[in-house]
Structures are given as C-alpha cells and as structure tokens.
C-alpha cells in the first residue's frame, strides 16, 4: 500500500492540493517532492532493491519495471524546469491558466503511473483515458487559437481512439468465451497464461481495435495527426512529457495485448500489423520532414518516427525488440532535451515558424549548441545512447525474417535525418535580415543544466550499459517469448 500511495495516491493528493493553493511556489515545492519520491521509489523497484506490493488491479511486472523509471525520470526533470518556465512572460490571457499547471501535471503523474502499473485491462483503460484528460487542458496552456484547435483535435481524436481500444478490450473478453477465462476478470496475467486457448478470431479483432485505438495516442500513422498537433502546440515541458512518457504509456498497452497474442497462432498477423503501422509511421515522418515548417511539429514528427521504430522493434522481435526497449529509454531522454531547447528558442523568438528563427547559434549560443547536440543524439550519432539502440534494432531487422525492411527503414531515416538537419541548420546558421543590434549574452539557466545532465545521462547509460538495465530488458524479452 505504501508504494501505491507514493506512486498514485500522493500525486493525486498533491494535485488536489495544488488545485486549491493559488501560489505557484508551494505548488512547485510539493510537486518536486512528489516527483523526487516517485523517482526514488521507481528506481528502487527497478534496481530490484524494493519489491512493490500493490493492491488489486495493480502490479509490477518486467515491462512496468522498465517503463516506470522512464516516466518518473522524464517527469522529474520536466517538473524541475517547469517553475522557471512558468515564470516566463506570456499573454495576459494565459496567465490565469498557470495556476492549474501543477495540479494537472500531478494528476498526469498519478494517471500515468496507474496506467503503467495496472494489471487489468479495464484499469489500464480508465487510467490512460485519464492521462488524456490531464494533458488536454495543458495543451491549451497558451490560450491561443492554435492551441485551442490542437486541444480539441487531440481530445476528440484520442477519445475516439481510446473508445476503440475499449471495444478491443470487450472483444478480448469475447475471445475468452468458452475457456477457463470466461467470466473471469481481465487480468493480464491470466490472459497471458491461457493465451493459446483464446478464440483466435476475436483475439485478432481485439488486437486490431486496441492497436488502432491506442495508435492515436502513440502516434502511429495514420492516426498520428492529433498527437502531432498537440505536441507541437503544447508548452515545451508538456510536449516533453507527452513525447517522453505519454506515448510510451499507450505503447505499453499495445505491448500487453501483443504479449497475450504472442504464443497464439495469431502472432504472425499481429506482428504484420505492427510492422505495417511502424513502417507507415516512418513513412509519414519521412514525408512530412520534407515540408514541415514549424520546428516543434518537426520534433513531433521525430517522435512519430521513433515510436515507429520502437514499434518496429516490437513487431520484428528478437534483437530488434531488445534494441527497441533500449530505444524507449534513450528516446525519452533525448526528446525531453529537444523539447526543452525548442522551448527556449520559442521563448526568445516567440514563434514556432522555422522562417522566423534565424542565426540562433549567435543569438542563443548555449541553447543553440545544446539543441544541435540533442539533434545529433536523437539521430543516432555516437556516443549518445540512440546510436547503440538503433544499431541493435537495425541488426535485429537485418537478421529477422524480413530483412528487406531494413532498406526501407534506412531510406526513410536517412531522409528524415537529412531534412531535419536542413531545418535545424537553417535555424541555427542562417543570418536574418534584421540582425538585432545588441546581442545579450544568453544566461545560463536551470534548463541548460538539466539538459546537459540528461545528455550526459543518455551517454553514460549507453556507454557503461549497466548490467541491471540489460537484465531487466532481457527479462522483458523473456516474458515476451522473444528468442535471442
């Protein structure tokens, strides 16, 4: 119960606290403490030092053991920089929205932890719908037309999507008809154990609905649009949260159903669908990188690309799956870095248009360089972690039963890389016609420090490749029956 209160109840309570306290400072303090506690405990669980005992509907398994620290890590850093972010001047219309920020963020943490820790499909559904609810108002943080539109689209699309996921869950119960599971609760554990007895037709149907429904949240093409709009218009910390953890929460749902389907005869079918979705995502990112003219949208498409890659790892299996798990870890960190720096750029130029941002390396040298490095990190340039995970995914694909996929993946990723580079370099290098007369030396802010820490983190984790991470990922792979 202790773990439950730290992971879920405490954030909920804090959310309530923040809702009623109007001053930002105590809100921030409370949130930081909660974030720290959450991070600490999830790390303890991850390291295997602490074995969590959770009430019904919740449990810790190998995959939530990995995903929970990802969430709390991303969350902690985002909350840490949130205060300084909130103090930036914004439109007066948006000022009133600030007071709900921490409440919503805490609610997000509670919902997200609940989704990750849930051991029951129903619980998972409720929690992940709650995450949508918590994020939607945050997208509307700026109170601008664009953010309103983005919020509407995100809320509507994801609600519809998640409704489909619910149909999928219902179909799953249908597939259990006539087996020992009939009339039983929808616990993952039981379903995994008796997976082979499930009715394949309904299982397939269930998979289709859950996969497609959750795709709206993960950002798997062609259901990615709402996600793109939301991440690009949300304030940067929220975009970082969404890209770094919310998408993974949804992805976890797909992983769960995939885990059930794995030992059954429908496995091949499910794999194919996931691979189709993943390749489509890469394709969409590839297409839009050519024409995107808004740097936050560009980052959002990059998220689509990387979630696509992770899904591809899941679909292909084997070594690629291991790579995908590593990729989930590294990608979440790199995305936080990118969005934070994008936030700084937005803060200075007051625009998300690429054309408006010029000569950023001179005007914002610190942010500029870190943004550049983050771009390299996300593109899989060593020594950053993504290089190592991408290598694993690529190798996994090359030696799977579908090696030709590697050609496609590399082709798409190449052009994504090139076009992303083109956009970023124009922002950083290109001289503007109206060069400001006096360039104020950019101050070294907290978020720079955080970004440096995160970049170092993503490097150190990758280079030292800690045994415990490896073992955890291997455990997941074993649970998913991946042959290595």
């Amino acid at each position, binding site marked *: 119960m202790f773990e439950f209160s730290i992971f879920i109840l405490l954030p909920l309570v804090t959310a309530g606290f923040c809702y009623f306290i109007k001053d930002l400072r105590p809100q921030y303090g409370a949130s930081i403490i909660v974030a720290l506690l959450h991070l600490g405990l999830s790390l303890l669980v991850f390291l295997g030092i602490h074995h969590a005992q959770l009430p019904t509907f919740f449990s810790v398994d190998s995959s939530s053991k990995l995903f929970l620290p990802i969430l709390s890590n991303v969350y902690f850093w985002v909350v840490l920089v949130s205060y300084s972010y909130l103090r930036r001047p914004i439109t007066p219309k948006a000022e009133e929205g600030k007071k709900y920020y921490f409440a919503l963020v805490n609610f997000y943490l509670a919902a997200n932890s609940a989704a990750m820790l849930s051991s029951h499909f129903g619980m998972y559904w409720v929690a992940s719908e709650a995450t949508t609810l918590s994020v939607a108002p945050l997208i509307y943080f700026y109170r601008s037309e664009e953010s309103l539109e983005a919020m509407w689209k995100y809320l509507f699309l994801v609600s519809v999507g998640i409704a489909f996921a619910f149909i999928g869950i219902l179909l799953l119960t249908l597939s259990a008809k006539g087996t020992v599971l009939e009339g039983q609760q929808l616990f993952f554990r039981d379903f995994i154990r008796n997976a082979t007895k499930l009715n394949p037709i309904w299982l397939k149907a269930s998979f289709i609905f859950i996969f497609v429904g959750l795709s709206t949240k993960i950002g798997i093409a*062609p259901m990615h649009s709402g996600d793109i709009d939301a991440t690009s218009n949300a304030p940067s910390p929220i975009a970082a949260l969404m890209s770094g953890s919310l998408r993974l929460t949804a992805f976890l749902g797909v992983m769960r159903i995939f885990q059930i389907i794995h030992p059954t005869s429908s496995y091949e079918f499910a794999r*194919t669908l996931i691979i189709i979705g993943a390749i489509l995502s890469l394709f969409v990112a590839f297409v839009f990188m*050519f*024409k995107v003219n808004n740097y936050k949208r560009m980052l959002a498409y990059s998220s689509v690309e990387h979630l696509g890659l992770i899904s591809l790892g899941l679909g292909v299996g084997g070594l690629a799956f291991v790579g995908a798990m590593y990729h989930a870890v590294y990608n979440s960190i790199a995305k936080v870095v990118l969005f934070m720096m994008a936030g700084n750029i937005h803060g200075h130029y007051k625009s998300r248009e690429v054309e408006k941002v010029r000569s950023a390396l001179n005007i914002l040298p610190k942010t500029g360089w870190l943004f550049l490095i983050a771009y390299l990190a996300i593109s899989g340039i*060593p020594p950053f972690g993504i290089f190592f995970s991408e290598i694993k995914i690529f190798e996994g694909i*090359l030696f799977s039963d579908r090696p030709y996929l590697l050609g496609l993946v*590399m082709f798409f990723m190449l052009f994504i890389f090139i076009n992303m580079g083109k956009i970023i370099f124009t922002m950083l*290098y290109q001289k503007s016609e109206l060069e400001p007369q006096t360039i104020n030396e950019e101050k070294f802010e907290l978020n720079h420090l955080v970004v440096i820490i995160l970049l170092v983190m993503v490097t150190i984790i990758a280079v030292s490749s800690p045994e415990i991470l490896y073992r955890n990922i291997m455990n997941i792979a074993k649970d998913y029956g991946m042959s290595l």
Partner: protein
Amino acid sequence: MKELSDTGNVLLIAAFAIQLLSIVFLSFKNERKALFTSNITMLVGLTLGLISTLSSTLFSSAEITSVSIFSGLIRLDGLSLYFLFVIQLVAIPTTIYSISYLRHYVEQKRSVKSFITFYIILLISTQFIVIANQAILFLVSWEVMSISAYFAIVYEKESEEVQTGSFYYFAASHVLIFILYIIFFLFHHETGSWFFSDYHLSFSSGLMVPVIFILSIIGFGIKAGFMPFHFWLPQAHPIAPTVLSAFLSGVLLKTGIYGILRIYQFIKPMPEWCGWFVLVISVISAILGVWYALAQHDIKRLLAYHSVENIGIIGIGIGIGFIGSANNLPAVEVLGFGGALLHTLNHAIFKSLLFIGSGVVYQNLGTRNIELMGGLVHPAKYIAILFLIGSVAISGIPPFNGFISEFIIYMGFFKTANELKNYYPILMLMFVVGLAFVGGLAVACFTKVNSIIFLGSERSEVKHFHTSVYDYISLGILALLCISIGFYPQPFVGVVNKVIANGFTTGASSALVDIDWLYFTMIFSSIALGVFVLYLIKIKLEKKYGRRNSAAWGCGYENLTPRMQYTASSFADELNTIPKAILDYHKKVEVSENAFPLQSKFKSHSKDFVDSKIVLPAFNVLRALVAKIEFLSQTDIRYYIGFILIIIAIYSMIAFLWT
C-alpha cells in the same frame, strides 16, 4: 599476437592523453593564447604519437608483429601502424599551419575555439579509426570523425555556400554510416563476434561475402571519393577552412582506403571480378576527376577534384592487388598494394602541401578564384617554389614522390600482363594508357594552376603578401617529404613492403624491393646536379655577354596589361570542350562585331555531372513525389476519424484474408 611493450604502450596512451589535453587549454579567455597553447599541445601529442609509431616495428628491420591492447579493443598491425603514421605525419604540418591560419580569424574578432575543439576531436577520432579492432569502436570513431569534421567544415557558417557545401558532406556521411552498419552486421552475423581479429570469411561461402564486398566499395567509396560517389567532395572541401581542407583531402579520404583494405583482409582471397570492378571505377574516377579539376576556377574545388583523381590512382593500385590475390601472384599483389599504399602517403603529403599553399594565397587575396590571381611569384617567391614542388609531385612527374608510387603501379600492370599472358596484356595496356592519360591531364591542370596563380603579372593588386613562419615550416616539412621520397624511396618502399607482408599477401615476394631504386636516386640527383652546374655556366655566360629585362613581345603593341594574359578558362578550354557533355561544360563567348571591337568576354563553367544530373534531380523528384502525398496533410478532424475507420476496415480485411 602479442601485447605491446610497456614503453610503446605508455607512449601511445600518453600521446592520446596529451592530444586530448589540448582541448583543456581552450579554456583560456585570450583567444590567441588559447589557440597557440592548444595547438602546441596537440603538436606535442602528435609528435609523441609519431615517435611511438616510428619506434614500432614499422621502421625497424624486424618483421611487423600485431599488437593488441585494452583487451583487444585496439590492435596495431601493419596496416594500422602505416595509416597511423600517415595521419600523424600529415597532421603535424596542418596543425602548425593552423596557428597562422586561425590567427586571421582571431584578428577579425571571431572565436576559433569551437573550430579547434572539433579539429582536435577530428584528429583523435581519425587515429582511433585505424587502430580500432572492434566494430562498435570503429563505428563510433567513424561517426565522431564524420560529425566533428562536419562541425569544423561549417565553421564559417553564415555563408550560404558553406551551408550548402557542408550539408552535402553531412548527408553523404550519413548514407555511408548506414552502409557501414550493414557491413559490420553481416560480419557479426557470420562470425558471431564484433572483433576484427575474428573476421575471416571466404567468398566461397555464398552470397554474403560478395554483398559485403560491394557494400564496402560503395560505403568506403563514398568516403574516399570514388566516382560516382564523389559528389559531396567538391562541394564540401572548398568551403572548409583551409587547414581542414588540407586534412580532409590529405588524410580523411584515406580512411575510406583504409576501410577497403581492411575489409579485403577479412575476406581475402578475392575472385578476380572484384579486381576488375575496382579497377574500372578507379580509372573512371582518375580520368574524370582530373578532367573536372581542369574545368574549375576555384582553386580549392580544383584540388578537391584532384583528390578524386588520386583516390582513383590509389584504387587502381588496389585493383591490381586484388587481381594479384585472385590469381595467387604475390609479386602482383605486392606491386599493386604497394603502389596504393605509397600513393596514399604521397597524396597525403602533396595534397596537404597544395591546400596549405592555396590557403596562404587565399588569406592574402581573399578569393579562391584563380582568374583573379596572377604574378604571385614576385611577392611570394618561396611559397611559389613550395607550391611548384607540390604541383610537380601531384602530376606524378619525376623527381618527386608522386612519380614513385605511380611507377610502382605501372610496374604492377606490366607484372600482371607478364604473369597472366593471354588477353591480359591488351587489357592492362588499356589501363596503362588510362593512367598515362591521367598524368597528361594532371600536367595540363597543374601547369594551369601554377602559371595562373603565380606566374605572369598580377591580375589584382597585392600590396603586401603576408606570410608567417608557421606557413613556411609546415610547407617546408611537406616539401621536404616530397623531395625525400622522390629522391630516396628505399626506406618508404621498405616500410610499405613490410606492411604488405603483414597480412596482405599469401606468398612472399620481393618484387617491390627488387626494383632498382638506386637508379632513381642517381638519375634524380644527376638531374639536380646537372641543372645546378648548367646554371653556374649560364650565370657565367650571362655575365660575359650581358642580361637585361625588357617588355615582352606584343606584336608591336607596347602596353601589355595583366588583363591581356591568357586566362585559366582559355588555357583549359580546348581540353574541356572534348568531354563537354560529361563535364557539363558551358562557355559563353561574347565577341563584339563592331568594326572597332570594344570588349569581348569569355566565360566558362562546369557543373558536376553526378551532382547536377543524378543527385539533385533524384532529390527533387523525391521531393516532388512527396509533395504529391497530400491526403496525409489534412487539417480536418473528420479525416482523422475517417482514417481510424478505414484502417480498421483494412486491418479487418487482412485478418479476414489471413491464412
């Protein structure tokens, strides 16, 4: 394999440590001080590295033994030591030169710290590439090398030209790294190891090894700059700061050669088609490379194309080596690989010499367009002489080093023809003629460069030609190397021979050392001596009968102006007109038809065929295709919802049809 001796170990590690340390000195607030100290530290590190390389078995009489340290992550065998030697040898003069070159930026109140940081990282990672014995370490070093080179290239980032040029490099290097991934995945899959020392595959084992071979030629060919994968090279090299261009063209391209040779070691012996494959693309690279060079007016672009040519020549050597290995002819192997390896060293030397020379000129004139230069021999006599040495060397003309390596390659052709008889002589003769043709074009090109830049009279005013002592030191070192390899090739040939004996050939052959190298020393010395003696005589005669200067013959016209000189465009016009279509050579002649002609104009320019006819159109077609995919960029949420329904329908159909 044995562990490196303690001193060697310590020396190598110390060398790298000191090189890394040089970054620390960049923390000085004073730019000038930071520049100086970090460069000097880097030099110390490089020199230490060079000493450790020289003190290795490479230069002693003993056989080369492969040495591995850091539990096999790093391994020093003949090939590594040789390339390490090349890198360090050339990095020293370029680093010396950077002190004077970068000072100009400091004077313009421009921070050079970022450049030096990336430059140092580049040097270190390049050294790591050739000593890495593990695929992941290799790939990491390779990527770090590519990226740091990119950031160093893009140093003058405000300029549009720099942005485009560097971007070519950036994109090309990413294509390359993807290919390298696949190569090493295949190795890993086949051998189950990431360590180079475990990589032994044979062509007889199915399709895997031919695939590896083709991929490695394409992948490393992109880096090295073989046609048609060279398109990024003439874009990126000219716009880099000259210090870097020297290093890029001189050394960095050679990592591609290193890669090809390394892969060869893993998959030898090869079937013969590999050799022919490499030979053909190399000859094409060599001929077209130099021909493109001839059509350029931008000195650094011209030199960049010459890199393509020289890489082609190295490739020809490698191709002969492959043919030798296929037919189990150690003598041919030794000559082919020997020529390639020696030319690698030679090209590194004279190409950096030429780039540094052009950098000195660029600093003073502020332009890279040779049409605006001229007559620089008068203010900068010694630079002209040093540049001339480099030019003669790169044209493969005796008595300098370029000739020695080309000679070995020619001998390789003769040997192949001789050993294999049949239809080989006629095929080999074709390649010989190709190589000779390349030589002729190189002569045309470098006479053009030298005469337009240095000879004649000034086309643009040069008030004072600044040179610094660092320029002379670095150019001097390189010129000295050109001369010494030319005049006394034995020790260098000996080293190359040893490197080849360490893991290249199947049987031993002394074909390389059997060439009468002493003749070269004698002949070249006698040329030098003869010229000297004759010069003395000439001076004496001139004293006796008089000597004076007078205006040149102008067909009766007295006031010859610098603008009346022959230009680079007109010099090369006749030659460039021949392969007009390939060079994409355009000229514009404006002749006034008046009875009293006023002004006539002649302009010429050439675009890279691969770039303008393949890469850019392909990219544009792709972009146009992508732009056609409109249905994905809907803004209406109803479409989003529709997509869900459609996708579910499609997936259900798949499920329904699933067997």
